[in-house]
């Protein structure tokens, strides 16, 4: 006779597994997202999200600002972590910059119109 409570089976293990596989299947975590947002008029804002931990966002921001001749800031978001925010449409510039500096093209996702 077996009491269900004494089973070694962990009811949460299954869900954890399935979640793990799901994370593998539809993972969005590894991508670097470059997005654009419209501001008033023809002004825009570019955000860079999902930067790998090994890169220093602060230094990268400094390099971006110097390279693209724009202002920008580092935003701390609860969900997304550190997000680099630049003035103007810098999407293609960012992606080329990152690719030139050794980030794989496949990991970069450029969003927007």
């Amino acid at each position, binding site marked *: 006779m077996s009491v269900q409570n004494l089973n070694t089976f962990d009811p949460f293990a299954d869900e954890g597994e399935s979640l793990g596989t*799901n994370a593998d299947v*539809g993972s969005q975590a590894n991508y670097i997202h470059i*997005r654009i*947002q*419209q*501001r008033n008029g*023809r002004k825009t804002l570019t*955000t860079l999200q999902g930067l790998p931990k090994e890169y220093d966002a602060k230094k990268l921001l400094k390099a971006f600002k110097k390279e693209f001749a724009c202002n920008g800031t580092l935003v701390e978001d609860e969900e997304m972590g550190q997000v680099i925010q630049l003035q103007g449409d810098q999407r293609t510039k960012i992606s080329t910059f990152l690719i030139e500096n050794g980030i794989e093209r496949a990991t970069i996702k450029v969003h*927007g*119109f």
Partner: protein
Amino acid sequence: MASEEPLFDPSLKKRKPKKKTVAFDEDPLGADADPTQPAPDTIEPTTVSGDVVDLGPSTAHESMKLNGSEGAESKKDDDELKAMFGDLKKKKKKKEIPMDFGDDSGTSTPVAVPAASGAAEDLDFSDIKKKKKSSKKKAAFDLEAFEKELNESKAKSGGDDDDEDGPEPGSTAHLDVDDAELGDDPFAHPDAPVGVDAGTEAWLKSDRDYTYPELLTRFYASLHAANPALLSSSSKRYTIAPPSIHREGNKKSIFANVTDICKRMHRQPEHVIQFLFAEMGTTGSVDGAGRLVIKGRFQQKQVENVLRRYIVEYVTCKTCKSPDTLLTKENRIFFMSCESCGSRRSVNAIKSGFQAQVGKRSKNKTG
């Protein structure tokens, strides 16, 4: 004539500018009866209808002469003028048709193609390198011919030639349909015999080895000869009407045919709209007429790009590139199953990502 005209009523003067306007509309027939006679020489392909066109203004001019000689009653003249205008309008239409024929038959391509094929046959006996080139050209022509027999659009053939992938099959379609319709007919007729005849016989007469493109064209020829059902099946092409974007006020765009496009893609409008908003980093709403009101200024091209990406991501099957797919949600995950090849894969959930603070902070208090 010109000396006679000022002697008559001013109504004739009124007629003159009318005549001139007519003349502007029709170029070869533009001047008076005298240039109309050389006109048939300039327009060669126009056969029956061309004669009709030439006859029209000549009769008009004659009637004008008659009117000038009669000269007394202006009402009759006006009536006749109106009649003439009506005729001219009809003739314009008629004229457009022979012009189209002229474009179809008179373009350089059908002339060039047999020439190229003839050159290719000549070259087959001389040089191998040149042979390869010519055969390649031939192969390209043959492929095009075949694909146009399939009524496939021009873009696809171009993609085959240029080795471009087709990640954006849906949205290029509506641009290419016109080209296909316009460009297919003149190509198809001269090319088809070339592909069948020269492709098979090119290496039979000479000692050389056959090249890959030749064999490829031969394969396609025999394939389509064996089962013509392929022609009709592959002629399908995924087309979507271009998004119609209007501006509402200064800061909003209206995407009028969202529902149509969603129906065409067999996707829930909510899903599409969610993707649009996430991708464009904006918000919006659906108004009473089923149109999507997007905050921000967007042009048709931009929305089209986003839609293209949506189609690549969520509509076309990754394995067989077929747009005939179903999107189902199971356990909070979207699965896309292909209807034609049966493959099934999960697709990324739509995430809007980080939204920067735009506008006044006092307005935008969340929570």
